């Protein structure tokens, strides 16, 4: 599986508006590992590979892995096959945060953008969690319901912001809400990577607890785990991943919903297997989507649109599978 991820990455390095041969990539790779190799790399190839394609591939992989693993975690703890990172209102909250920054500030400031997305994403989750605490016993349904309501509230707010800004800013906001990796750079990679490494490792270490939590509250308590505390930890971690991912590349749907199903379909439901596998599969899936987005049309289209177009047939497949099971 890791092999598949690496081959997809190399393919992504090769393909694009400027085609680069495998030999040139090998030469480029060797020249970076061994600086005394004496290989001559063309400046434009060096530029495209190091500054454009490499950060993009890393960013796409990290985002795909993060969204997929968040979906796996949320589906397990909510015991619901249709839940994804978007159900808690995280992405809409982040979208609002980003739009607000674009509206209020003239200069483009990536750090401020990410901070605001993170704050409003977390605000959504906090509201959802508080609402669910008010209804003990029915907290799961209230949680999902509040998430949906908050999502539409923030979506409406984003539209409102677009209504009041000038054309150029509308374009910026609109482009961002499509979800795209066109602006990928090393700065983004260095922002996402530590968050994902930390949360991903924690998820792998805690994956056995997800198995227990998927049995429900009474059963988890009977097996000696603190249900509320575990659920809370998992929700916080997925919120951190989702909001930081959304801040960087906009809301990208489907990955978090589809990948967990495919992994479980192929390899069984045990989360000690599903969690690491959905990390890798999410990266592979989003790489493929991104490759389609930037290579298969004469001009690049936002990855969020491609994901949604491909997502529908997958989604129907999942629904049919659930009905059969």
């Amino acid at each position, binding site marked *: 599986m890791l092999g598949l991820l690496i081959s997809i990455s190399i393919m992504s390095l090769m393909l694009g508006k400027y085609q680069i041969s495998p030999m040139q990539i090998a030469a480029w790779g060797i020249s970076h590992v061994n600086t005394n190799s004496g290989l001559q790399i063309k400046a434009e190839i060096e530029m495209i590979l190091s500054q454009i394609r490499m950060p993009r591939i890393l960013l796409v992989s990290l985002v795909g892995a993060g969204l997929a693993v968040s979906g796996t975690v949320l589906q*397990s703890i909510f*015991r*619901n*096959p249709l839940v994804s990172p978007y159900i808690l209102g995280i992405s809409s909250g982040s979208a609002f945060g980003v739009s607000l920054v674009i509206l209020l500030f003239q200069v483009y400031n990536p750090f401020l953008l990410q901070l605001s997305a993170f704050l409003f994403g977390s605000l959504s989750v906090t509201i959802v969690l508080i609402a669910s605490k008010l209804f003990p016993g029915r907290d799961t349904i209230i949680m999902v319901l509040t998430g949906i309501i908050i999502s539409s509230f923030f979506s409406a707010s984003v539209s409102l912001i677009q209504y009041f800004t000038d054309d150029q800013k509308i374009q910026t906001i609109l482009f961002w809400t499509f979800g795209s990796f066109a602006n990928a750079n090393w700065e983004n990679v260095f922002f996402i990577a530590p968050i994902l490494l930390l949360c991903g490792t924690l998820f792998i*270490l*805690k*994956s*056995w*607890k997800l*198995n*227990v939590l*998927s*049995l*429900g509250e*009474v*059963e988890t*308590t*009977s*097996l*000696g*785990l*603190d249900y509320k505390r575990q659920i809370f930890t998992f929700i916080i971690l997925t919120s951190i991943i989702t909001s930081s991912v959304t801040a960087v590349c906009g809301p990208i749907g489907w990955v978090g919903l589809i990948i967990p199903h495919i992994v*479980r379909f192929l390899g*069984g*439901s*045990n*989360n*000690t297997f599903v969690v690491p596998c959905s990390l890798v599969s999410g990266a592979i899936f989003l790489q493929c989507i991104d490759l389609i987005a930037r290579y298969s049309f004469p001009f690049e289209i936002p990855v969020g649109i491609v994901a949604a177009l491909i997502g529908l047939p997958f989604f129907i497949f999942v629904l049919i599978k659930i009905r059969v*099971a």
Partner: protein
Amino acid sequence: MISVQNLSLFVQNKVILENINFSMDSGLLGVFGPNGIGKSTLLRTIAGHHKNFTGDVLINSINIRSFHKQLLARNISFIPQEYTTYLDFSVKDLTLLGRTPYLSLLGKYSQNDFKIVETILHDIGLNQLQDRPISSLSSGERRLTILSMALAQMTPIIILDEPTNFLDIYNTVKTLRLLKELSITKKKLIIVSIHDINFATSFFDSVLFLCPDKYSIFGESKIITNEVNLKKMFGLDFQVIHEGESSFFVPKINSNT
């Protein structure tokens, strides 16, 4: 050993359970009572899921309130009435989850855990099915898998909320026989809520009758299970049929009481 003393439970100032007393070392205890009387609530309270009760629940003379969650899970296993698993685990994986209270922070199963699960699946007769996903099992086999999981907890006390619900008569008898056997061979205390009073004298060592008006009767099954107490519990007249050591009860349908 479990001892319940003056147990009462209020939910939003409404009395659900009042002044329940019983104590038992090992064996099979049947909890009987009409629908909505609080059987499930009682079982959940004893299992440590409700905190706001008055009175005492003692396990080996130690108050249940002082147990840490993990330690409690090593002493009592509880199987709720409806056990729905969202993820489609294999029989073996689900049974292994019963070892959760013994796992360390990283959740790695030891050789011992695997051995325990293997033995249990063999004893219950599920070893042929151990790699099958539970979605492919019959409801009887699924119940047995969940029982295996509770057994993997290796607790001296097992509480089951209506384990024979929706089972046919063959699987009902099979389940009760299995529980009876476990209570004898493994010296476990097994508490079961059940509706069919005709199993009371043939399977259960002791019974707890929950009657309307917050009134309960506890004692040896063969003594307590009679038409007088059954009338108190269900408000119906019964005809008794004695068959060897067991008694069977048929409601008198035409009596207008």
